[in-house]
């Protein structure tokens, strides 16, 4: 990897980091467990590694933005996540911020 490719990769990862959190929060307005969440994000064009997504879910839950419960589905215990009330509030603010940023960037010639 050349120096400029490496720089691009670092900047890309930095840019994606915040966006992925936003996407995960938004997608979890509907309940999902880890694997189906990853599939649904991929279906929307947002590929995310398992090793990134699963710890992210834990972190967001620790921060009180998600709630989870173990439940049996198709004869297997799975941990289902959904947005908490606090998470809904913060998601609303984050989406406003995201739109404002996006609009600003679009306006820059």
């Amino acid at each position, binding site marked *: 990897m050349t120096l400029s490719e490496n720089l691009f990769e670092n900047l890309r990862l930095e840019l994606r980091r915040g966006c992925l959190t936003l996407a995960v929060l938004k997608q979890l307005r509907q309940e999902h*467990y880890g694997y189906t969440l990853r599939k649904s994000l991929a279906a929307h064009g947002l590929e995310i590694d*398992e*090793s990134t997504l*699963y710890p992210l879910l834990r972190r967001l839950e*620790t921060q009180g933005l998600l709630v989870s419960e173990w439940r049996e589905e198709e004869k297997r*215990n799975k*941990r289902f996540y959904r947005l908490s009330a606090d998470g809904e509030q913060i998601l609303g603010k984050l989406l406003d911020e995201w739109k404002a940023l996006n609009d600003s960037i679009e306006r820059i010639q």
Partner: protein
Amino acid sequence: MEILERYLQAVRKFLPGNRQDDIIAELRANLEAQIEDAESERGRPLSKTELEELLRKMGPPIFVAMRYQPQRYVIGPKLFPMYWYVLRLAMMWSLLVYVIVNAVQIGAGQIGPHVSSAIAQALFQAPFTLLTVAAWITLTFAGIEYVTEHYPHVCKSHEWLGGNWSVDSLPALEKNAVSGGTRRSYAKAVAEVVFGFIFLAWLLLVPKYPILLFGPGVIAIDALPYALAHTWWSFYWIIIGLNAMQLTWNCIDLLRDKWQSVTPLQHIAAKGLSLIAFAVLLATSNKAYLVMKNPTDDFAKYGDTLAGINKGVHLGLSIMVAVVAVQLTWEIVKAVRNQQND
């Protein structure tokens, strides 16, 4: 599915004890769902190679486990600039204190009878002292990082990071920034102090170990019938004083955060002192810069050569003093003009 169990077992080893079961159960459920999905797509069970490829994509167990740990910093990016600033200041202060304490101890003969070995010992121990200071500063800042992160109500990080700074606290505009004095970088200022310290130590060791100055040539010098006259000792101590003064000045500049430029006064003082040193040599009586080791035996044989050498040295010194005196006068004139313009 033995390979899946082995993978989960490896991940478990790197997870925090109280969350191991929960995280592994979730990871297992997700991986099993993924495997089932892949199998239903293919309409057959996954082969060993396909399963291995799926786990390989997941990543090495240690990295997977580490991502479940909260992000931790010994000193975080918010606090780091302040840490770096304090560390640099502390290193400079400790170096200065260390030099002064050791100089006093060596001067008082408290470290040992041999000055050269005492200096060598002080030089050898200097890095350890500085490392100890750096370790304490780092530990202190790691503590601040921990408290500001875990107890934000006790220690508000924005207060540490200049959240309450006032524009009035900005230093006045430096004269040299406007009039275009000689600018230097912080690295250069620090390098000047470090190399000044090393140079001074080297200079102090030269009388005891002339090999440091002359190298292997010291053997040839020993064989010569001539020796340096006593006047060189006066010259030597003035040069030591000049370098010690320069080093102290540079240290004070760094500590006072005034390292950005070299003032004309510093140039003039350094040049003036070096002029005095050469003038002392020039004033040597009978121009005797070199003397005979055994005058009674060697004078007849080497007397004329010695007189010629002394005459040459005197001429060289005269030219040097004249050049330095012209330079010094020019710098004084320049400094006075700049002062009048300001």
